[in-house]
């Protein structure tokens, strides 16, 4: 699957934690506006893969380009890329000492050099987008998990990123709250932003993904459209994985 003008391009990317080979010869092109779901057993390297995109993790071999810029030790380049890439974490990682509104305005004011008034307005728009504007003055720990995760999505959107990365965004949520977060993510997907999402929510994958990637032991085992992926998995490893997560 070759995109003509990929926004993210991995070519033969490798990474090790000590002697542990966590990413092995990753080749992956992501087209602009493409929505990708990455799944796989724990320890398969899927989180590490997307964390390389905004260089929360460094790869040690191969070339990784994001929006035409190659990721290296160049701090300025990394900071520029991070402004283009929003990220949502499993544990939300909101700043507990700041209000919801301050969580959203921090980066626009300090990174984007946006005046406070404008940053506040933009933040309120994003909060309205995730349907939580009335909680702007509260502190994160006063909100439910689902609300916190929606704030985290709004925070990532405040810098108007071109790419959104989701690292198991619903795994730490109570079952009752998963839907409210997925709904927001589905809306976002329908608005044309490039999305890479590590998740086991297969319903989400079916309804919004352009492509599903299955990883195991640091390798991309198989990738396909959701329809093909779920109905005709090619490798035995994929079949085995799907049988386990779709059984219930």
């Amino acid at each position, binding site marked *: 699957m070759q995109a003509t003008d990929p926004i993210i391009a991995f070519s033969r990317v490798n990474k090790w934690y000590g002697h542990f080979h966590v990413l092995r010869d990753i080749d992956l092109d992501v087209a602009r506006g493409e929505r990708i779901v990455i799944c796989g057993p724990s320890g398969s390297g899927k989180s590490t893969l997307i964390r390389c995109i905004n260089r929360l993790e460094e790869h040690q071999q191969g070339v990784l380009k994001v929006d035409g810029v190659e990721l290296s030790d160049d701090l300025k380049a990394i900071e520029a890329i991070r402004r283009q890439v929003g*990220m949502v*974490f499993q544990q939300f990682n909101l700043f507990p000492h700041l209000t919801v509104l301050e969580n959203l305005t*921090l*980066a626009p004011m300090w990174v984007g050099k946006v005046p406070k008034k404008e940053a506040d307005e933009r933040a309120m728009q994003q909060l309205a987008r995730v349907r939580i504007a009335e909680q702007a003055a509260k*502190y994160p*720990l006063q909100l439910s998990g689902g609300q916190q995760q929606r704030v985290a999505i709004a925070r990532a959107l405040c810098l108007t990123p071109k790419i959104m990365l989701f690292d198991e965004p619903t795994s730490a949520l109570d079952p009752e709250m998963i839907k409210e977060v997925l709904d927001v993510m589905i809306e976002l997907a329908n608005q044309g932003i490039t999305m890479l999402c590590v998740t086991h929510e297969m319903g989400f994958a079916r309804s919004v993904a352009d492509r599903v990637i299955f990883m195991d032991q640091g390798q991309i085992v198989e990738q396909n459209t959701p329809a093909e992926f779920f109905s005709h998995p090619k490798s035995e490893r994929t079949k085995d994985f799907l049988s386990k997560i779709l059984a219930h």
Partner: protein
Amino acid sequence: MSTITHGYQLIPPRAPPVATEGVLPWLRRNLFSDWKNALGTLVIAALLAVFVPRLFDWAVVNAVARPDNAACRAIGHAGACWGVVAEKYRLILFGRYPYAEQWRPLLATTLMIVLLAASCYRPFWKQWLIALWVVVAAAFFVLMRGGVLGLTPVETARWGGFPLTMMLSTIGLGTAFPLSILVALGRRSRMPGIRTLCVLYVELIRGVPLISVLFMASFMFPLFMPAGMTIDVLLRVQVGITLFSAAYLAEVVRGGLQAVPRGQVEAAASLGLTYWQTTRKIVLPQALRIVVPAIMNTFIGTFKDTSLVTIVSLYDLTGALQLALGDSDWRKFFLEGQLFVAAIYFVCCFAMSRYSRWVERHLNTGARRN
């Protein structure tokens, strides 16, 4: 067995069954909950009944408050001789500072205490407060040292008493605290050079008693200075105290830094914040609030440790008391003098302790649920 019902009904909240408030329930629960507890309460009450009246008689009823040496000697052990304080308080409070000029340390110290009190108030934590501190510190030195504006010069060797204690601890902690943050960050730096330097500094200073540091600052340091060049002993001691408490504070701050989850730094990084922005806006506010009690512990320790400067012939509050008790007429009443000085220390330390509690509560808004 309850029967299975299909209709769900909300049970309204009810008040608890037993009254748990009021004096009697409190007494029973806390002082007389069982026979062991009751026995303990009675024994302690009996001891208090014996000793409190005696202490009261000694400290108040039979005490001599006038600076009357003969009356003090006459009362003997039956009453306290607060006369020693009445007679010597200026020597205790200001040390060997020239008697006629003692309004200067009084004014300088008052300025510093007023500004300290103002600095405790959170809405004042703005840039102008730092500027004001520079101004007040300058005013403090001009007043103490003299030599300008028609003030008679007073050499630093004669500074003493409470102003010296205040100066050594306020300036010491005021400079040690920012330094300690840099050292704590340096110890976690990715750059091996900086990291090694910070580890060496902390381990070397912490591994040595403060007395040794003060001796080295006072006697050893001048040996390595070029001939003819001297640095004021008070300045050297001040630097010694600063470096010493900074090493301890750095470890306290590092503890706070380690308690901030990695995800916080990752979230800040993913938003494009630089290292220093992340440190200032995300990491330090959370790290420092966790270690407020430990920081204040170190502050209080340093405040009291300044009394060790007497070993290099600087007369802080405790040193000045020794000077005052050098008078053979009053030497007998050292206990009252010690109590007076102890009371001053206690007031200062208790104020710091209460302030620390207040800061904890007020910084905790976000960390609490609801």
